[in-house]
């Protein structure tokens, strides 16, 4: 089974701690996010992972998603999501 590795940096922490995760390609990204959030002790629900050049990763994708090209697959960042409220539900 092929594996993919990620270096995930917590950018909301000024010390920029990071974790290196290695998971099977078929792993749902929700699991990667959940695990990374647990490792960093931040809530998964308010966290997101983006590539090094700022592309957001839909957690519904699998870890081996081909959209993430080789030059921006590593490192990735995990940070707390900001919020905005749309006019419809304000």
């Amino acid at each position, binding site marked *: 089974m092929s594996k993919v590795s990620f270096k995930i940096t917590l950018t*909301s922490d*000024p010390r920029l701690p990071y974790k290196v995760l290695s998971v099977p390609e078929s792993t749902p990204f929700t699991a990667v996010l959940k695990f990374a959030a647990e490792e960093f002790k931040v809530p998964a629900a308010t966290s997101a992972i983006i590539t090094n050049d700022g592309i957001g990763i839909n957690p519904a994708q699998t870890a081996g998603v081909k959209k993430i090209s080789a030059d921006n697959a590593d490192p990735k960042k995990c940070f707390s999501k*900001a*919020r*905005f409220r749309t*006019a419809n539900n304000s």
Partner: protein
Amino acid sequence: MGDKPPGFWGSRSWIGCVEASLCLDHFGGPQGRLRHVPRGAGLQGELERLYSHFAGGGGPVMVGGDADARSKALLGVCLGPGTEAYVLVLDPHCWGAPKNPSELQAAGWVGWREVSTAFDPNSFYNLCLTSCNSEKQLPTRD
């Protein structure tokens, strides 16, 4: 898009710049690149990047924060003499069809704001920098 659990639709849960960038990608809109500004950092450190973004033809920048829950859209940046810096802020809650740009300004929907006062140092911010879609260029006005 599958990024949220069942029950999110119709709820009063929050969304932010991350979801906005995923929507742009999902629905074939302009690309949105994300930048995280940690709590306390302020936007001073992002001014050069914002300047390059707009100077290079970049589109509006969506801004969302946590302690600062007032969403904003940046339409431009002005670096003044010394350390002064201003951003052109559009309130995305603006709706309707104004007769002219002055009406928008007079109503406070759009205006230049000094960076040090427009952003809360106690808040983190996420920025979503949108690229212009070259196939749908807006007509210029003389």
